[in-house]
């Protein structure tokens, strides 16, 4: 059993990736995730892995494309503007059915935005990110421990479904320090008969490709991928339910904002406001069934995010517009306070 250590989020994330079997890391410096690269630069050579600083975010994601195409467990990390640059490569990774892990330690946007924590890349992460009909698995950890635990899951599911997985953190999760029990090193290896690793003259050549010039072939390819997506939506959604069963007002929040919500819920409960939390851990697949179940007893929903309201669309669709959904959020790098959420709960309770 590993012992508990205190680590910075970005460094714990990097160590967890190595323990999950990540063999190659390609990245480009950007605040607030640069410690991931710095840690990888220090550790990868010692564990027989690859660390390379790419000339751009675009090159980094294409190095990932190459490493993944030739069978390696690999990861890149960045923050919001850098993820936009990676979008092209992520689309190709989706189109070529390659497993890879992409980390976004989100900062405020749009444009160069700011360097403080934000959750304003929800749409980008959950709507497929690059061009074309495609999805990413998106995990939204709320603590450093959860981020480390989800790392192995992200790699495993990326391999299982042959698609990219994203760890959607934020500047707070990346920068803060917390006690964490690091996962045990993964020992499982996954056979990748599709990978371009050289034929050894023993088989027909493998082609890793996203080009289908015949429309019917491209449609068949996309449909086959969507069959996997249907399976993923049925089996992989994860959601934490906190004081939800008797709640009149259900708050939806993910990642760092869910922790602030919990503080607000405790204060609200002390005042007799029956508030609870539904915290999606997977943003795609979105835990629709859990939300719909609780819509039966909750009178209203309150969506809390560090943006102008993005997940709120998924909340409304999940509960099929059966209850009013209000919003409380801050953006631009400002962290919402428990009191701001509490004020909103009081306002809703009074209605």
């Amino acid at each position, binding site marked *: 059993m590993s012992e508990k250590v205190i680590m910075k989020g970005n460094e714990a994330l990097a160590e967890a990736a190595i323990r999950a079997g990540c*063999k*190659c890391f*390609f990245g480009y410096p950007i605040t607030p995730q640069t410690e991931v690269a710095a840690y990888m630069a220090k550790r990868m050579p010692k564990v027989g892995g*690859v660390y*390379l600083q*790419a*000339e*751009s975010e*675009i*090159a*980094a994601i*294409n*190095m*990932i*494309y*190459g*490493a*993944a*195409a*030739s*069978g*390696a467990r*690999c990861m890149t990390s960045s923050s919001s503007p850098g993820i936009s640059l990676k979008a*092209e*490569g992520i689309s*190709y990774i989706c189109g*070529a059915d390659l497993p890879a892990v992409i980390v976004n330690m989100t900062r405020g946007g749009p444009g160069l935005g700011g360097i403080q924590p934000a959750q304003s890349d929800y749409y980008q992460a959950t709507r497929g990110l690059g061009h074309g009909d495609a999805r990413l698995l998106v995990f939204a950890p709320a603590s450093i421990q959860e981020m480390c635990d989800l790392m192995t899951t992200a790699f495993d599911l990326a391999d299982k479904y042959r698609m990219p997985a994203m760890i959607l953190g934020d500047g707070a999760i990346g920068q803060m320090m917390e006690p964490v029990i690091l996962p045990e090193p993964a020992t499982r290896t996954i056979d990748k008969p599709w990978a*371009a*690793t*050289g*034929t*050894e*003259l*023993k088989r027909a*050549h*493998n*082609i*890793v*490709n*996203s*080009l289908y010039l015949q429309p019917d072939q491209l449609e068949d390819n996309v449909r086959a991928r969507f069959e996997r997506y249907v399976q993923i939506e049925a089996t992989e959604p994860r959601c934490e339910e906190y004081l939800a069963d008797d709640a009149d007002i259900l708050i939806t929040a993910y990642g760092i904002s869910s922790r602030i919500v919990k503080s607000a819920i405790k204060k609200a409960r002390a005042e007799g406001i029956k508030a609870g939390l539904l915290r999606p851990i997977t943003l795609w697949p979105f835990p629709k069934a859990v939300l719909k179940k609780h819509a039966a007893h909750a009178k209203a929903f309150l969506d809390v995010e560090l943006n102008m309201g993005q997940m709120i669309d998924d909340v409304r669709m999940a509960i099929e517009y059966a209850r009013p959904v209000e919003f409380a959020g801050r953006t631009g790098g400002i962290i919402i306070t428990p009191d701001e959420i509490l004020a909103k709960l009081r306002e809703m309770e009074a209605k």
Partner: protein
Amino acid sequence: MSVVFDRPHALADVSTHYCPGCFHGIIHRLVAECIDELGIEGKTIGIAPVGCSVLAYNYFNCDMIQAAHGRAPAVATGVKRANPDKVVFTYQGDGDLAAIGTAETVHAATRGENITVIFVNNAIYGMTGGQMAPTTLPGQITQTTPFGRDVKEAGNPIRVCELLSSLDGPALLQRVTCDTVPHIRDARKAILKGFQNQLEGKGFSLIEVVSTCPTNWGLSPVKAIEWLRQNMLPYYPLGVYKEVK
């Protein structure tokens, strides 16, 4: 009966989509011959670009990866770093390598990435129907330079070998062509050296093959070769621009 001419094993037994008179067919064959000669087909991974040679993944019998436009050197870097014992080559055109992929090209070169780059320069975007390329000659008429490339408006062409020759990373930068049998033999030797360098761990090798595009130049195959000699070779002189012995 002795066989005097045969298809290289590394070259797939399929028809290509290339136009008559285009050098891609010759260059594919040379690459495949070199792979055969070195006995490396089983451990070679090729990277196809976006452009006329996008379907190169169908034409080589080694494992192939299709890359995004211009990103082949980055993709090759990922493959090579993950599999340092494998042989990795990219096959790219001028738009791919010298316009949208300039950063990837320059940085793979300066890192001395241990890969082999086959660069086909025909001074035009072929696949999209003949637009100005980074290597389109001054005055050359294309779909997007209908009055001839005016360097004051459209800028000047890039000479890739010369541009990269200031870098410390490359092991081989050589420009060849395929207009005559002796030149084809020289091209073959250069490509072979490019692969040998990789096997010896010497680093980045780029072989630029000055090529024709009869279709988009609007010339017959024979006239296209004449045009190449009269216009391309004076602007893009053949030769070795860098070689680490």
